[in-house]
């Protein structure tokens, strides 16, 4: 059985047994009000809103990784491919009950895409029809920050950004993730 389905099963199992659950609409509406508040605070400067969402996500990621590790007790990922599976099939499953597809690997295995067939954060959402939002705003940008923050805490510096979103009229919601470098452990004498 391929490692992906094995990881998917782990994710499924963790979702059933280890995750406390709440009403999805509360989370969706809460995220919605956060984005709306940002758009209000930065009076429609969507580029700045994207940045703020990414920053908020980063702050969350730094903490969320501990929750992920504490509840999933998965070992250290051997390689970036395994990390991608772990993020898509276990991470997203445990927190948002979705399993985005991992595709479009580059030959050097340092870049991949996450395709979101469903995205609970964008439920009910219709972008403002002001002729700008659909070109500038990445509504679910917080997710990129979460990935960046979480993986940084396990010594992986990555870059993540959306390349398409159904809210913008595209056919798929796709996030591009690329490994920048493995971060050396801070502890000096740690000569692995």
């Amino acid at each position, binding site marked *: 059985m391929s490692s992906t389905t094995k990881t998917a099963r782990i994710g499924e199992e963790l979702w059933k047994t280890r995750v406390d659950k709440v009403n999805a609409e509360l989370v969706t509406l809460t995220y*919605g*009000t956060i984005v*709306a508040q940002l758009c209000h605070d930065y009076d429609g400067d969507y580029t700045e809103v994207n940045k703020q969402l990414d920053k908020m996500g980063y702050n969350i990621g730094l903490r969320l990784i501990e929750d992920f590790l504490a509840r999933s007790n998965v070992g250290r990922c051997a390689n970036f491919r395994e990390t991608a599976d772990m993020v898509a099939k276990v991470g997203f499953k445990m927190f948002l009950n979705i399993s985005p597809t991992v595709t479009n690997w580059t030959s050097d295995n340092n870049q991949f895409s996450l395709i979101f067939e469903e995205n609970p954060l964008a439920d*009910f*959402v*219709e972008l403002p*029809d002001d002729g700008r939002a659909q070109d500038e705003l990445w509504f679910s940008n917080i997710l990129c920050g979460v990935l960046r923050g979480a993986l940084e805490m396990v010594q992986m510096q990555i870059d993540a950004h959306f390349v398409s979103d159904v809210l913008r009229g595209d056919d798929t919601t796709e996030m591009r993730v690329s490994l920048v470098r493995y971060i050396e452990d801070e502890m000096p004498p740690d000569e692995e």
Partner: protein
Amino acid sequence: MSYYFTILSPTDAPLFNIAFGTSKSGGDGIARFRFPDTAQYMNQFIIHSSLDIVEEAQWMNGNMYLKHIDTYPPAQAYISAFLTPSGARFLLLHQPPQLPSSTSSSGGNTGSSSLLGSSFSASALGGGSSGRASSSSIAANPTAPQTEEAVRQFMNEVYENYVKTVMSPFYRVGLEIKSPVFRARVTAAGRKWL
């Protein structure tokens, strides 16, 4: 039968309105109001004049669908109301076609002609006399139970689409609903039920 449907915010700011004719029994869905050229202002005037009644009914009758709440005899306009729990008001004015033979009881027509404003494009086509006063139940007597039921179904379907509009985090109370998809959905509901 011609319809004028409008959505007002809790503070009576207009959010959406649309005029359409019945599609029942061969209707072509085009609105043909009695006084075509002043229909738009006339309809809004009639609607606003019934707001007081809506205000009263709102606190006497706990239902969302208040059914037929007001009539404006001069224009033979019947007004039905639907209140959303969050305070928005759906108001539907329906006006049976002018029967050519009958001296329609327009006696109460208080010199409204002086209000004749710019012509209202939609009705210009209809030319007022639709001739075939269809005898279908809904068209014939606007206050019949079948009509009320039809209007209820229409209101419910509009409400479903209204909720879908306001659920988006970017919708703020009092914001006009400009989505063409919403407009298409209301038109479809009109065609289906009225």
